[in-house]
């Protein structure tokens, strides 16, 4: 009985607190504070974003002329392979899970840290190491079989392909550990009163993502280990000449990499679900449907991988079920789109840069979703597969989805993270420049693909069936737009730098938002919450005045404010 009381009420203040470090190294380099680790992920992710983005510009410069002006064909293959690998594994996944997940999620659930801070530290440091290994493969011959590294080309590929395996394996382990950490944190450490249906939608998105990370990423580790063994020790798995099967790699790779697209997009859905209600001054429409659709997407995400393989020669009977399941995924995704749109309806919309990027996200991600439905249809896919139409589709959902989401999140949480405001004017410039040049870059790629231009070629023929009868002109238009797109990032970097140097001090809650991270100072104190708040309402009640009544306003230190509002899984106060 005494034990039960201790569990429910008189909780001490020692749990998940570690003393604030004094030395520079313990504070900023090997920190175990989730907020610092989150910022570390963001800085490293930004660095790899710039490197991978520059590689994309090499690709576009090469395609300015049909003969391919600047790099050899082999280098070109390496450049687009590392552009894809760098963007997927070193930029988007670490930014949306490790970066914003670490910084925002514990704050939003009212926790002082993640469940396993030391594991968090280890998981983070695998990431820059993996990034350095990945890009150092240029020194010994970079992988040249695309970011998917299909055998048998990847088996015969240059030595750097093995480094690629090691780097992606490492970042995979990092993702798995982060997934486990986040799952335990979200399931076990929510503030008292924060039931599942009072969780912010970003936390729901992180929950679904963590499930995917935990299960799917180890599958990738298996596929990579087998490829590594085949390359280094001749162990036959994928080489058809020795009884192996290239299709086996495709199955193993896509069993991870299709869920991985949801690892990249679900947190972005979470950003959008926070930003749209805040800047529309309306509770989110269909909270439960948006929350549950994240889980539905995560589960369905495991059943659709072979839609990447319609042209691979796999058993034809598999095509129909995978096509239907893929189309079904559009349903939970559509639920979210309709939920956000309905939130905007009749809202008092403020066109803050975060909101601009969120609205832009809805537009371009929906376009990418529509081409996704086309690609999931077997007859269309047979025609589109391996063309620039696929390149257009993936950039509409990854750049227009994940990166737009990341930009929105940067503008939204920047004042909380740095304690300084950014320029809204420069933010608007960044948005419009990005939005216009993004569409100018990737929209024409659809037509390039439909006219028959294959992806991953360093040279092409000039004569096209329509669009001025010239592949060259369209490619030049795309390349020049992509240079503008790259330049738009400079506006963001300038905005960040000037905010850090001379930005206005940020108030605790500049957007009048209702989630927990906005109820404490900017930047948050080391322990996040001196007193763990009790949560009484869902986080989107904008009609309630501030200080938000959804939080218990009582001020008694270290006393559990409301022991009756326990979560089913056991809360930590």
């Amino acid at each position: 009985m005494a034990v039960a009381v201790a569990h429910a009420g008189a909780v001490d203040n020692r749990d998940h607190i570690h003393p604030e470090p004094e030395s520079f190294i313990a504070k900023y380099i090997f920190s175990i504070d989730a907020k610092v680790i989150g910022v570390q992920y963001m800085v490293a992710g930004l660095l790899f974003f710039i490197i991978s983005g520059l590689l994309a510009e090499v690709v576009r410069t090469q395609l300015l002329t049909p003969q391919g002006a600047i790099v050899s064909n082999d280098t070109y293959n390496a450049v687009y392979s590392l552009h894809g690998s760098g963007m997927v594994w070193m930029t988007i996944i670490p930014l949306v899970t490790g970066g914003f997940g670490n910084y925002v999620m514990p704050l939003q659930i009212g926790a002082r840290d993640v469940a396993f801070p030391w594991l968090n530290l280890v998981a983070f440091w695998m990431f820059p190491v993996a990034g350095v290994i990945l890009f150092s493969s240029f020194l010994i011959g970079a992988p040249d079989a695309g970011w998917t590294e299909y055998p048998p080309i990847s088996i015969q590929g240059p030595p750097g392909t093995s480094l690629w395996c090691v780097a992606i394996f490492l970042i995979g382990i990092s993702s798995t550990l982060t997934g486990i950490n986040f799952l335990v944190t979200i399931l076990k450490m929510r503030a008292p009163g924060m039931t599942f249906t009072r969780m912010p939608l970003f936390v729901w998105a992180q929950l679904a993502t963590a499930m995917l990370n935990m299960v799917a990423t180890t599958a990738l580790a298996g596929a990579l280990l087998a490829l590594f063994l085949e390359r280094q020790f001749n162990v036959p798995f994928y080489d058809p000449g020795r009884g192996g099967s290239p299709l086996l790699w495709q199955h193993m790779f896509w069993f991870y990499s299709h869920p991985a697209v949801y690892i990249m997009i679900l947190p972005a859905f979470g950003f959008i679900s926070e930003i749209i209600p805040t800047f529309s001054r309306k509770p989110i429409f269909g909270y439960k449907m948006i929350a549950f659709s994240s889980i539905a997407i995560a589960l369905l995400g495991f059943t659709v991988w072979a839609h990447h393989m319609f042209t691979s020669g796999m058993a034809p009977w598999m095509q129909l079920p995978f096509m239907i399941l893929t189309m079904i995924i559009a349903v939970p995704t559509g639920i979210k789109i309709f939920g956000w749109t309905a939130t905007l309806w009749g809202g008092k919309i403020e066109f803050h840069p975060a909101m601009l990027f969120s609205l832009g996200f809805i537009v371009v991600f929906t376009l990418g979703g529509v081409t996704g439905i086309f690609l999931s249809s077997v007859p269309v896919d047979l025609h589109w597969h391996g063309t620039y139409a696929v390149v257009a589709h993936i950039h509409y959902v990854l750049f227009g989805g994940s990166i737009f989401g990341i930009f929105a999140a940067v503008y939204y949480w920047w004042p909380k993270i740095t304690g300084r405001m950014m320029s809204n004017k420069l933010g608007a410039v960044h948005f419009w420049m990005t939005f216009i040049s993004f569409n100018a870059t990737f929209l024409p790629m659809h037509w390039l693909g439909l006219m028959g231009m294959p992806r991953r070629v360093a040279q092409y023929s000039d004569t096209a069936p329509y669009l001025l009868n010239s592949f060259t002109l369209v490619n030049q238009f795309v390349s020049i737009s992509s240079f503008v797109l790259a330049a738009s990032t400079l506006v963001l970097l300038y905005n960040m730098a000037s905010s850090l140097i001379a930005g206005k001090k940020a108030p605790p809650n500049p957007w009048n938002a209702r989630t927990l991270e906005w109820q404490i100072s900017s930047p948050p104190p080391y322990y996040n919450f001196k007193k763990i708040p009790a949560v009484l309402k869902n986080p989107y009640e904008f009609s309630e005045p501030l200080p938000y009544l959804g939080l218990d306003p009582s001020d008694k230190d270290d006393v559990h404010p409301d022991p009756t509002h326990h979560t089913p899984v056991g809360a930590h106060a």
Partner: protein
Amino acid sequence: MAVSSLNSTHEAVHARYEAVDSLYRETRDLRLLGFVLFLISDVVLFTMFIFAYLYLRNSVPNWPPINKDGVQLPRFDVAFACVNSCILFGSGATMHFAMESWKHLKKAEFNLWMIATIVLGIMFLGGQAYEYSHVPITWAGSTLGGSFFTLTGLHGFHVFVGVIYLITLYIQANNGTYTGSKYFGLTAGTLYWHFVDVIWVALFYLFYLM
């Protein structure tokens, strides 16, 4: 009478398990869930290689396949594997008894069962090494060899790590790291060892019986 005394012992074990401060209770909750999730993600790793094995097995008309020199590969020696499997399953049982002894505060018995588990684990690894040196197939020679050595090697690596883990736990337990109430490390070690056992059940069926 016997039943009720058994119940009261179990109640005592349970009472000790609950008689911890809230900080220990909370972190134990987190660590237990985290460890189980880690084991689940590890299962996925084995599942991928098992999938690869079944996929490659089903892509040829006959199994065992012929190797690259056109030689028909034999089946594995089931009898030897049976003995070795029994050693590993036996170690699962001794691990269970070790954990139960600790919970019932029988430290001498705990030490005996732990040593038995460690010895059986090392014997299994020795048996594995013996089998590796005697099977007529090679790692790189055929898809059968590739899957067999990769999967059993991955499992053997897990057993090896497990043996080191158990030795560490044994030393810790005798240094007073754990008490009758606070013994999460032992729980995790037991879970890990049973996990290694269960994986072997699948591998034994797939390579020797199927």
